[in-house]
C-alpha cells in the first residue's frame, strides 16, 4: 500500500524489545517494578486485542443497545478509576464520580450527536464509541482532580472556612475558595491542551489517519470538534463533581462534616 507500512504480528512481537529496555532500566535502577512492567505489557496486549474484537462485533451489529452497553461499560470503568484516585474509603466517592462523569459525558455527547455532527442513526458505533471514549477520559481526569483537590483544600483551609461560617456565611459562600481552587486545578490542564494542541503532540485521531495515509481535512475538523468536546466534558464534569463534594462536606445547618476530612 502506498505510504502505508503494514505491521505484522511478527513485528508486534519484535516490538517487545522496547519493553525489554524498560525491564532493564527497572532492574538496573532497582525500581521494584519488573512485575508491574510485565503485567502491564501483557494487559496492553490483551486489552487492546479484546477491545479490537469487541469493537468489530459492535460495529458489525450496529444496534443501539450494543452502543449503549459499550458506553455504560466505559463510564463504569472511568467512575472506578476516578473514585480510586480520591481518598481511600471516603464516603460517597463512587456516587460523586458516577454522577459527575455521566453528566459531563451526557451533556457533551447529546450536543455533538444531536446538533454538531448530527449522527444518524444516533447510535452509529463507529462515530459514537471512539468519540465518547475521548470525552469520557477527559471528563474522568477533570472529575478526579476536582474531588481530590477539593478534599485537600477543605482540610488545609478548614479554619478559614470555619471563620466564614462563624461570621454567618452559608456553606456555599464559605466554600467558595476551595470550590474555585479545585475547579481551576481540574480545568487548567484541559485549557492548556487547547492552547498547545498540535504543537507538541499530534492528537490521537489525526495521528491514526496520518499513519494510515488518509489524513484529510475531515480529520482536522473532527479533531477541532473533539478538542471542544473534551473541554465541555471536563467543565461540566468538574462543576457537577464540585457541587456534590460541597454537599458532602457540609451539613444542612452549615457545619463542616469532620468525618469527611479524614
Amino acid at each position, binding site marked *: 500500500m502506498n505510504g502505508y507500512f503494514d505491521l505484522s504480528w511478527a513485528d508486534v512481537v519484535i516490538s517487545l524489545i522496547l519493553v525489554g529496555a524498560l525491564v532493564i532500566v527497572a532492574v538496573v535502577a532497582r525500581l521494584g517494578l519488573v512485575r508491574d512492567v510485565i503485567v502491564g505489557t501483557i494487559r496492553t496486549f490483551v486489552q487492546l486485542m479484546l477491545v479490537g474484537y469487541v469493537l468489530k462485533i459492535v460495529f458489525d451489529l450496529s444496534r443501539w443497545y450494543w452502543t449503549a452497553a459499550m458506553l455504560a461499560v466505559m463510564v463504569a470503568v472511568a467512575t472506578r478509576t476516578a473514585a480510586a484516585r480520591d481518598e481511600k474509603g471516603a464516603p460517597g466517592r463512587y456516587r460523586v464520580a458516577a454522577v459527575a462523569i455521566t453528566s459531563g459525558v451526557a451533556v457533551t455527547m447529546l450536543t455533538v450527536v444531536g446538533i454538531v455532527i448530527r449522527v444518524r442513526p444516533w447510535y452509529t458505533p463507529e462515530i459514537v464509541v471512539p468519540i465518547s471514549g475521548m470525552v469520557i477520559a477527559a471528563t474522568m481526569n477533570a472529575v478526579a482532580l476536582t474531588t481530590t483537590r477539593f478534599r485537600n483544600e477543605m482540610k488545609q483551609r478548614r479554619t478559614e472556612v*470555619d*471563620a466564614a461560617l*462563624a461570621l454567618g456565611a452559608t456553606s456555599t459562600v464559605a466554600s467558595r475558595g476551595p470550590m474555585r481552587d479545585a475547579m481551576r486545578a481540574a480545568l487548567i490542564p484541559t485549557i492548556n491542551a487547547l492552547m498547545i494542541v498540535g504543537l507538541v503532540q499530534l492528537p490521537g485521531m489525526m495521528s491514526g489517519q496520518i499513519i494510515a495515509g488518509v489524513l484529510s481535512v475531515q480529520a482536522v475538523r473532527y479533531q477541532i470538534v473533539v478538542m471542544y468536546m473534551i473541554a465541555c466534558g471536563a467543565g461540566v464534569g468538574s462543576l457537577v463533581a464540585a457541587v456534590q463534594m460541597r454537599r458532602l462536606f457540609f451539613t444542612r445547618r452549615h*457545619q463542616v462534616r469532620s468525618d*469527611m476530612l479524614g
Partner: protein
Amino acid sequence: MTRPKLAAQELDVVRAVRRDGETTRVSVLKTVDLNVPAGEVVGVIGPSGSGKTTLLRALNALEEPSGGHVLLDGIDTREIEPTELRRRVGMVFQTPALFDETVMDNVSYGLRLNECSADKEQLEGRAHECLSFVGLNGGFAARPARELSQGEQQRVSIARALAPSPEVVLMDEPTSALDPTATARILDLVRALRDDAGLTVVFVTHLMEQARAVCDRAVVLVEGRSVDEGALPELFEHPSSDLTRRFLDGRLEREGEE
C-alpha cells in the same frame, strides 16, 4: 439567678471521625452544663483535650449537639437559622484565620454577607469603628491582612467578629500563638468587650492566670464533663470538685501526658 444570656443544658456532642477509611463515633462532650449571664466574661477552663473548643463550637452551632440544648435568650438554638445565630454569637479562633485579603475586606466580611443593601461608606465606617476599638488605626485598613504580626492579626480577627454587632463573643484561646505583650493587649480587649461594648463573652483557656485576669465566672471541663462552675476567684479558692483541685494544681495535665 435571672435567665442567662447563653446556656448549655446537658449538652452531648458525638463526633464522627474517619481514620484509615473507618468511621467511628467519639463522644466528646457528655451532659455539659454552662450558664453565661449577660454582660459577663465566662471562662471555660480545663486540661487540653477536655472538650473546651468543642463546647465553644457547639454554642454557635459550628458543631451539632447530639443531645441536650443550647439556649440563646432562653430559645433553643436549633430553632434559629445557623447563619442568624452566628451573626448574634460571634467567634474568635485560636489562630486569627484571616482571609487572604486586605484588613478592610476581612473586617467587613460579615457586614457584606448580611447587609448587601448597605452602602459602601456605611460599611467601611462600621469596619473602621471596629478597627479603632481593637486599637488599629485607619492606616491598617488597606494592608494585606496576612502580612501583619500575629498579635495585629488576632486583633483584626476580633474586629472582624465585632463588625456584625454580635450579642455574644466566643473566644477560643485567642492568645495561644502570641507573645506576652500581644497577649496583654488581647486580654485588655476582652475586658473592654464587656466593660465598654457591653458584650457577653465566653473565653476558653487552659491558663489559670488568664481566667483570673478576665473572667467573672468559670466552668471547669474535664474529659468532656463540666465538673465545676462558679464565680471567680472564689471557684479557684474553694473548688467544690476534687477534679477542679487537681486541675488547679496542674496534676491533670501531667497525668494526661503520661
